[in-house]
């Protein structure tokens, strides 16, 4: 037996010594790909929106836990997904508010502050624990206060957030959604986000991501989306997709002395010199679609490598495309500085209004009760469509559900689906989800009254007089398209069109966020306890002092003398008045 063991050992040694099985040489098949893309779209108001998308696709099954060798996919996120059984993760950190009415439908909107929604694997037994752990780890990775996500701001939506990736079941108990509207986004969140990119900010489109320019903008939103996708058309195997997106809106109109012309250098104070060497696709799209049927108003320089036409969110769009990987682009000049000039001043009156937009505000007066009003506009000339409204309200605003009214065109509009989960004090927030039918060309007004609760004095955040934020409400809708859309191949089409799955040719998916609300709560005077302590203590001390004196003094009869100062003073007055002296 010993001899056999020795022989086996020898065999093992021999195996270890000989080189590994035949390796594919230079043409080794990559299992992960990176695509990077920048979309520049001039907005009707003269601002410019820049949307970066970096998409890493990895043909490996992250879930098994056996995969631990990372190339383009960042290890920190990969381990997170594997360790906590995450099926889909969407994290957005946003500063500012996307003004849908004037800027139009955003390619990707996120609510102000931090938003996190995660679908877990069915195998995860304790979803709440995994959710807590996940938010803690993410807050470490992104330097954000996501660790403040707890049961008081976490909800389980039933209809609004469907998995965006591959999913075989949609049991909403595996979903968690939380928004932190108070979160401030700044450079310290951008740096770790950039670090997740394979090329960092050293090459490719990411060189434009210069923090001091990005945060000098009207809107900044950075996001991470992780989801499983089909590996190929037959969808027999799963690939994992990581999308890092970043949207900024620059106000070039006011910074450019009233001119709407812009260039890459003006906005980012950098220009593009090359593509990320790891990327299989690196493109810049510039939206040059004519706003009305007239001839083009704007011109871009240098001439684009190609022109791409697509129907995006119900609109026919034309894009000038610069392919950074094409050798032609850098032939003439070493760097690419896309410039756009308007041929004649644009009429702001011809601004198209998006089909679906919304608005929200707090009504009422005083510090006891109030009212949340939401206005949803459907500007489609002849089509009605349903919309799902998700409203999360913290527990300290006590909603009166019986006051919920939905009025469209002066008539009551009964929601076809309603899900309400009442709040529990200090435990969980209110959750209200409704499916509302929006008639064509209408405004729907939703109001609900609330009462403000009194908090314990330790529950107030720093600076409580600033007010308390109520997160944005979420509108999800399949908006009917005026122009029929073609089914597009996800791998071929530009990235900005392919995050939300399109259902059919006649409608497109839109998710909108309304403004966050700032509500004042009755706030006590926080120095009061100390004042009270001081005052009571002084009173007690004075009482004590006189009592003490009373107890310890020895009283004895004083011989009448010439009298003190008081007596002499009294005598002077008496003398003046002509009264007998004391």
């Amino acid at each position: 037996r010993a001899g056999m063991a020795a022989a086996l050992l020898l065999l093992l040694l021999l195996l270890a010594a000989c080189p590994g099985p035949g390796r594919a040489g230079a043409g080794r098949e990559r299992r992960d790909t990176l695509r990077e893309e920048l979309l520049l779209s001039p907005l009707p108001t003269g601002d410019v929106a820049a949307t970066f998308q970096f998409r890493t696709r990895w043909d490996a099954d992250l879930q098994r836990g056996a995969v631990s060798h990372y190339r383009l996919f960042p290890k920190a996120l990969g381990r997170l997904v594997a360790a906590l059984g995450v099926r889909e993760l969407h994290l957005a950190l946003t500063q500012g508010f996307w003004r849908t009415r004037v800027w139009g439908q955003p390619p990707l909107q996120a609510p102000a502050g931090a938003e996190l929604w995660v679908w877990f694997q069915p195998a995860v037994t304790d979803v709440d624990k995994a959710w807590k752990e996940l938010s803690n780890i993410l807050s470490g990775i992104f330097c954000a206060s996501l660790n403040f996500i707890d049961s008081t701001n976490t909800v389980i939506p039933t209809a609004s957030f469907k998995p965006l990736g591959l999913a075989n079941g949609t049991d909403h108990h595996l979903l968690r959604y939380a928004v932190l509207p108070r979160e401030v986004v700044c450079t310290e969140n951008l740096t770790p986000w950039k670090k997740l990119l394979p090329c960092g900010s050293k090459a490719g489109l990411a060189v434009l991501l210069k923090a001091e320019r990005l945060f000098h903008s009207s809107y900044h939103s950075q996001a991470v989306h992780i989801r499983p996708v089909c590996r190929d058309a037959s969808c027999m195997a799963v690939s994992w997709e990581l999308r890092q997106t970043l949207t900024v809106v620059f106000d070039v109109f006011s910074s450019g002395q009233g001119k709407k012309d812009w260039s890459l250098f003006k906005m980012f104070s950098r220009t593009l010199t090359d593509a990320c060497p790891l990327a299989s696709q690196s493109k810049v799209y510039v939206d040059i679609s004519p706003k009305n049927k007239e001839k083009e108003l704007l011109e871009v320089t240098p001439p684009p490598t190609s022109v791409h036409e697509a129907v995006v969110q119900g609109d026919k769009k034309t894009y000038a495309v610069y392919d950074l990987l094409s050798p032609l682009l850098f032939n003439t000049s070493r760097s690419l500085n896309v410039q756009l000039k308007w041929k004649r001043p644009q009429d702001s009156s011809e601004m198209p209004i998006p089909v679906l937009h919304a608005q929200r505000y707090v009504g009422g007066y005083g510090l006891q009760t109030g009212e949340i009003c939401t206005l949803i506009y459907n500007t489609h000339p002849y089509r009605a469509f349903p919309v799902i409204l998700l409203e999360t309200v913290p527990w300290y605003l006590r909603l009166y559900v019986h006051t919920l009214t939905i009025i469209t065109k002066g008539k009551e509009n009964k929601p076809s689906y309603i899900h309400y989960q009442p709040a529990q004090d200090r435990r969980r927030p209110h959750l209200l989800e409704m499916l509302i039918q929006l008639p064509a060309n209408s405004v729907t007004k939703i109001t609900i009254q609330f009462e403000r609760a009194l908090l314990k004095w330790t529950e107030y955040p720093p600076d409580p007089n600033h007010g308390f934020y109520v997160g944005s409400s979420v509108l999800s809708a399949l908006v009917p398209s005026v122009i029929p859309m073609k089914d597009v191949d996800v791998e071929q089409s530009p990235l900005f069109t392919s995050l939300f799955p399109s259902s059919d040719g006649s409608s497109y998916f839109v998710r909108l966020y309304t403004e966050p609300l700032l509500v004042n709560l009755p706030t006590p005077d926080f120095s009061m306890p100390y004042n009270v302590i001081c005052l009571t203590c002084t009173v007690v001390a004075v009482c004590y002092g006189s009592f003490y004196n009373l107890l310890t003094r020895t009283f004895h009869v004083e011989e009448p003398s010439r009298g003190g100062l008081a007596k002499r003073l009294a005598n002077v007055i008496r003398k003046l008045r002509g009264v007998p002296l004391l």
Partner: protein
Amino acid sequence: QVQLVVPVAVVFSPGSVPGDLPSPLPFRDVQEMEISVNLRTSVTSRYEMAYQGTTAQEEAAMAVTTAREADAALRPLQDVSMGSLTMYVVPENSSLLPQGTSVYVGRHRSALVRAGGGLAALHARLRQVTQVMSFTATSIAAALSDRVPDGRLSPDARRSLKSSLGYEITFSLLNPDPKSHAVDWDIEGAVNRYVKPVLDKLSLVANFSVDSQILYYAVLGVTPRYDKESSSFLLSAHSLPHVINPVEARLGSSAASLYPVLNFLLYVPERSHSPLYIQDKDGAPVSTNAFHSPRWGGIMVYNVEAPASPQASLPLQVDVDMARVMEVFLAQLRLLFGLSREELPPEFLLESPGNEGLADWELDHLLWAHTVENIATVSTTLTSLAQLLDKIGNIVIKDDVASEVYRAVASVQSAMAKLAVGHLHSAFQASKEAVTSSERAFFDPSLLHLLYFPDDQKFAIYIPLFLPMAVPILLSLAKIVRETRQRKKEPTKMD
């Protein structure tokens, strides 16, 4: 007081029994050794020697030509429990051992020792072998390095990793210049082929997880110096400490676990800086082109050969020779676990650990050190917890924290009892449990809340009460003092 007991069986083959044995075989004997760490801590080691003659089977097993074969053949006949050792004494003229070597340490828990020079010489030799195969004074001191006074410990002793329940091993390929080098490494195969056998063996000591990543545009923190003579770039030894910091920021922390991370970096220098060589303190190039950082990991520089023709298209395809890389990384891994095979007398011959990368007795070596270190850690943790309780009287200890503390104490006691009877494996398990319980007790969140209301702040709040109240008391005190003084003066006046 920790007592480490090593059971040693000494087997004399025919013709090797020294003439001056105190009693006829078999007999038992105990040798003690005191290892003092500092003034208050010392460790006693007891070697329980059992002397006996060979059995017929053992004789048959040793009737082979080489030491390696004898080692393999003797393996099934030994006591295989961890921590116990078996020494086979062979005659002085035996041909089993090569010329010039007097001790052969096998792959398992046994050694062949050449007899000769009487009992005293044999004793000395046996003691040396047992120490190499179990623990030495320095390895125990290194394990208790927290308690050793500064300066008494060599820097080598501070190199090995602290004992932990688990380790994460991360291999990172740094490619600062992806435009000119497209570097590929078959890390998955290499891990399975070279690292996994070692870790399987080490899995007894701790949990290991292995992963790898490729980092692009990650540069070292030091610009290498150009050397005209060899037309290469040089990194001198004194600049190496500055190399790690900028890379460290990119490595990414292990967010999902709390175990210490061992980093092994393979650095492919950029085209404008290659070839790159590391110089040692004397200015000579380091043959492996690698260095390690204590308790952190290792870095290896992997130079890419310049293409034959300068017109070769970029990026250059590079396939990393993983055997060469892993050889270096595994050597560094052994170093970081304190398993160096240096400092041995020349007449010792150690069998190479083979595919597993680790001999059985080396595992024991690690277990001895880790058990002692765990016991020391638990005692430190519990002592600081006790000190905390002494300092803050009103801290609340919940029942579960208390039970963790009791469990930790019980586990430590059982670990020490197991060590004192020579059951290394169960002692190690008990010490691991003790560490878990004590850490859980010490880091319990309930021990934190009450810390933040110190007594001086309470006093500050009540100052508005105390201050006005003190005024009349102080005034009357002053009055009393004045009066007594006057009363003292008065009698002299009366006279």
